[in-house]
């Protein structure tokens, strides 16, 4: 077969093609996922001339969905950026490149790179979700709490640069320290920070906004409840009730 011979030649004979369906060949080449499975790369032969399509028939996004969903605008933005920067198209989950016979090798490698990058989005799931939660919280604070002169990244004990307050709000009696909490690690840090501030006799009120309070381990829920003054169980809760709380506290 012409395509197989061309690709074999370009891959230095380290490649095979299996017929998956009529006009669809599955590539066997030394291109693997981290779990050892070979990357799902297919070559769709045009029926009436035209360009060859190198594609994955949705297998990459299917595999990714075992542990990671593209379910937020931020994740969507990152996926689209990976695809557009690597000149790969997506149609209903199918990642594809149109190519010419003499460019099969480079197109296969180009798609393999994208398959790898998209698959690795799961490794950054914490960072992706974390930044989105912070983006939303920051946006709300900057737009709605301007009267309280929000000041980001405050260190109440100058010699302790490990104890950071996400935002400080200015209130007449004493400042309000605001913390966003996405996970148990941040929850513990906030609990320790507030206890240290208390030990240093800082005058403040502490507010924690959780991404999902119920998602924290039980012991961490107890720890943070004991250490801070006021908690909002979600960003929605803070958006709904945060302003009235601050008005009462002022």
């Amino acid at each position, binding site marked *: 077969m012409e395509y197989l011979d061309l690709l074999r030649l370009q891959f230095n004979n380290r490649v095979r093609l299996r017929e*998956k*369906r009529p006009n669809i060949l*599955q590539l*066997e080449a030394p291109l*693997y996922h*981290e*779990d*050892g*499975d*070979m990357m*799902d790369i297919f070559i769709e032969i045009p029926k009436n001339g035209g360009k060859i399509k190198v594609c994955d*028939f*949705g*297998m990459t*996004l*299917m595999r990714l*969905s*075992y*542990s990671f969903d*593209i379910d937020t605008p931020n994740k969507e933005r990152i996926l689209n950026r990976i695809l557009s920067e690597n000149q790969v198209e997506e149609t*209903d*989950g*199918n990642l594809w490149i149109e190519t010419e016979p003499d460019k099969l090798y480079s197109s296969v490698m180009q798609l393999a790179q994208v398959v790898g990058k998209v698959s690795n989005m799961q490794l950054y799931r914490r960072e992706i979700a974390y930044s989105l939660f912070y983006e939303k919280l920051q946006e709300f604070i900057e737009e709605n709490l301007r009267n309280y002169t929000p000041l980001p990244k405050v260190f109440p004990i100058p010699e302790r640069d490990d104890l950071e307050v996400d935002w400080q709000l200015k209130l007449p009696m004493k400042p309000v320290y605001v913390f966003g909490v996405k996970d*148990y690690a941040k929850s513990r840090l906030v609990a320790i920070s507030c206890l240290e501030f208390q030990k240093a006799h800082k005058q403040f009120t502490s507010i924690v906004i959780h991404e999902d309070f119920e998602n924290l*381990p*039980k012991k961490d829920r107890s720890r943070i409840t004991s250490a801070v003054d006021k908690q909002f169980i979600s960003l929605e809760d803070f958006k709904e009730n945060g302003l009235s709380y601050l008005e009462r506290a002022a």
Partner: protein
Amino acid sequence: MEGKNAMVTYTSELLSSLISCKKKVVKSPHKEMKIERGSFRNDLSLKSEDGKWNFSVFMRKNQKFAENFTIGLRYHPQEGESFTLLRCNGPHGNHIDLERTNSSHYVFHIHMANIDRLNDGVFSERMGTITDKYASYEEALSYFIREVGIMDADQFFPEYIIQLSLFSEEGE
């Protein structure tokens, strides 16, 4: 044998218990799989009968190639990373360990969590073994339901429980 995932120490016995313990459904699957970005998908959440452990199940079937499917059980520890304990796959393609293990992933196969792989710290269910326990997605789901101890499964998967009784070990 022991392995570490974040702050938790796992043993082979614990992994076996996590897979086989009785589990209650806390978030039901959809009645029908939903098509999303090229694959049929369904999910559910589980909790161990004693309430200690949390799990999720992912069911996926490629829209173009029905034989490219997977049904997996993920464990969500209170601390540390979630990971897949068990994954029942269809015949989707080749595997890097093909020559060493003499196993082909062009056949139905099962990936299982293993302490040594957990010790490596990345994918716990990297290697797979060939299985004759199922030969279709529906049979794989019946097998999976039984292996991971989903309680009251007939309420959530009635059609697959019928299949389960048809092909039960007692009947073989």
